[in-house]
């Protein structure tokens, strides 16, 4: 008979404790808030799933969710193809490779709130270079503090500036790992540049692209700092994304119950969409 060795638990224990303190306990606290109501003094009343229902039915949440999906969709649809195109046009060897890589990495090294502040000053009419150029040189009415469209364009352009590099660097890593023989064989086989992209470069980039898309999805879906610093969610509520709205409810209004329920819904959506992306993108390999 096999003797069971219980010693292994001692080795797992530190990790269990760590995960409990940094993930499990905070999440359980949120779950705890999400089903109760409090009027202070540490007195709680059981509320069941009422907060969830209230949040899901509220126009305010639905609007924020819609804006969030629109934002993430635009980010992915712009940054992924743009990143691939830039990666494809980067040199494969020589002096310019490190130069390009450093230039690409620079935006990602800047802290998020600094990026927000930079773009805020950059885009302000009269003050910033972009604002001045648009209004006074081109004569276009561009003011992100007044016009929702201008505000949206600014946060999108800012994010593209900040994060396209991630897609570029990951795609580039995939591209340089393709041996020369593939390109030579394709030349001999008479493949057009499009076919080289479709049948050699894209399949070889697929793994890193999956990671890039997942990271860009999660980051853009959970984005908070940059639009908050740039527009504070305005003008009006036009750039109030989910996380900004959540912070308003939790810390602005101190509605702990609804905020907790909203956090959990938010978390579930992120998880679900990430899972969907991952399953769809890796489906072919499993066959």
């Amino acid at each position, binding site marked *: 008979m096999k003797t069971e060795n219980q010693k292994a638990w001692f080795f797992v224990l530190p990790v269990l404790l760590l995960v409990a303190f940094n993930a499990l306990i905070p999440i359980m606290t949120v779950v705890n808030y999400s089903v109760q109501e409090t009027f202070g003094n540490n007195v709680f009343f059981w509320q069941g799933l009422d907060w969830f229902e209230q949040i899901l039915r509220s126009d305010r949440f639905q609007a924020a969710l819609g804006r969030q999906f629109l934002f993430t969709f635009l980010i992915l649809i712009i940054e992924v193809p743009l990143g691939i195109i830039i990666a494809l046009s980067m040199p494969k060897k020589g002096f310019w490779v490190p130069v390009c890589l450093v230039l690409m990495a620079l935006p990602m090294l800047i802290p998020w709130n600094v990026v927000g502040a930079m773009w805020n000053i950059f885009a302000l009419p009269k003050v910033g270079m972009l604002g001045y150029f648009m209004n006074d040189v081109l004569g276009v009415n561009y003011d992100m503090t007044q016009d929702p469209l201008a505000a949206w364009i600014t946060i999108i352009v800012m994010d593209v500036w900040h994060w396209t590099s991630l897609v570029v660097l990951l795609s580039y890593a995939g591209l340089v790992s393709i041996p020369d023989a593939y390109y030579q064989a394709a*030349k001999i086989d008479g493949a057009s540049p499009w076919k080289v992209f479709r049948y050699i470069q894209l399949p070889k980039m697929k793994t890193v692209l999956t990671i890039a898309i997942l990271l860009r999805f999660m980051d853009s879906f959970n984005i908070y700092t940059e639009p908050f610093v740039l527009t504070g969610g305005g003008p009006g509520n036009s750039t109030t994304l989910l996380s900004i709205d959540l912070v308003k409810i939790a810390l602005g209004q101190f509605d702990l119950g609804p905020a907790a329920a909203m956090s959990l819904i938010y978390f579930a959506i992120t998880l679900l969409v990430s899972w969907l992306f991952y399953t769809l993108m890796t489906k072919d390999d499993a066959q």
Partner: protein
Amino acid sequence: MAKITLKNLRHAYAPNPTPEDYVLKEIDLSWQDGGAYALLGPSGCGKSTLLNIISGLLTPSDGRILFDDRDVTDLPPDQRNIAQVFQFPVIYDTMTVRDNLAFPLRNRNVNETKIAERVAEIAEMLDVTEMLDIRASHLSPDNKQKISMGRGLVRDDVNVVMFDEPLTVIDPHLKWKLRSKLKELHQRVRATMIYVTHDQTEALTFADQVVVMQAGEIVQIGSPVDLFERPQHTFVGHFIGSPGMNILPATVENGRAIFEGQPVTLEGAVKGDGGRTEIGIRPEFVSLADDGVEARVRKVSDVGRHAIVESMVGDTPVKAMVEEAHLEQGALVHLAFKPDQTRLYRDGWISTEATP
């Protein structure tokens, strides 16, 4: 299919080359239509460069390449009608085996009926018919390599099929199988085939004619038997054979070779004079005898059917391949050199007349 002629071919990777920059120095070569050739040489001798020049992936610094009488020097690879199999199998991962094989034909707008016909034919030839509908990425390395070969052979107008060390990533027990498959394919399709390798066994078993290269130059072109029996250069003698030829420093006096103070009979008359002289004899033709060159045994290694006796003549080691040897280290032996296999080399090049 075509005859391939290389005229005064030279190549350097540097833009303004000095004579030392040339990785290929003056290659003049002509390959007959339908032959099986091997390019053999150590790594870095320029054989892959030469192959890439023939396929058009590289443009030579000087010289011309002719397919039959057509100058193709300035044509890109896809217009030369050549096929190349690389060291690592190149397959299109996302396609099925069938689509992989059809790819070169589809790119040339061949009609689908013709494509289906050719693909079926090639698949049958390569024994991959039952794999046609599998995704190519799921194949084993040797089958992947077969598919990349198949993509070369699927075009019936192909001038030459080139193999760039195609067995590098194949397991040893499959190497042999794939090698005989190659030989069989050559007999069936009768296309000119050029096989690049640094492995003498692969070169000698595949090719009718072997081109031995060293440092960007062709040292000898000949059949496997020629290369083994009468190397034109000490490099060929040393590179081919296992173990390689004994190259023994010697002096020449009155048309006779003197090795470590003892006379050695050569195959024929000595040509030329001056330079560095060496005797070349294969271990297969050195035997232990009652008299001959005196030597002291240093090491005996049993290699299965033979034993290799390494003994010292003065300060020079000489290897002899014998049936059986029970010798102590330090024992005194006499080595007999088979006269018609004993040659003199002057500055590396052969300089004895062949026995008629």
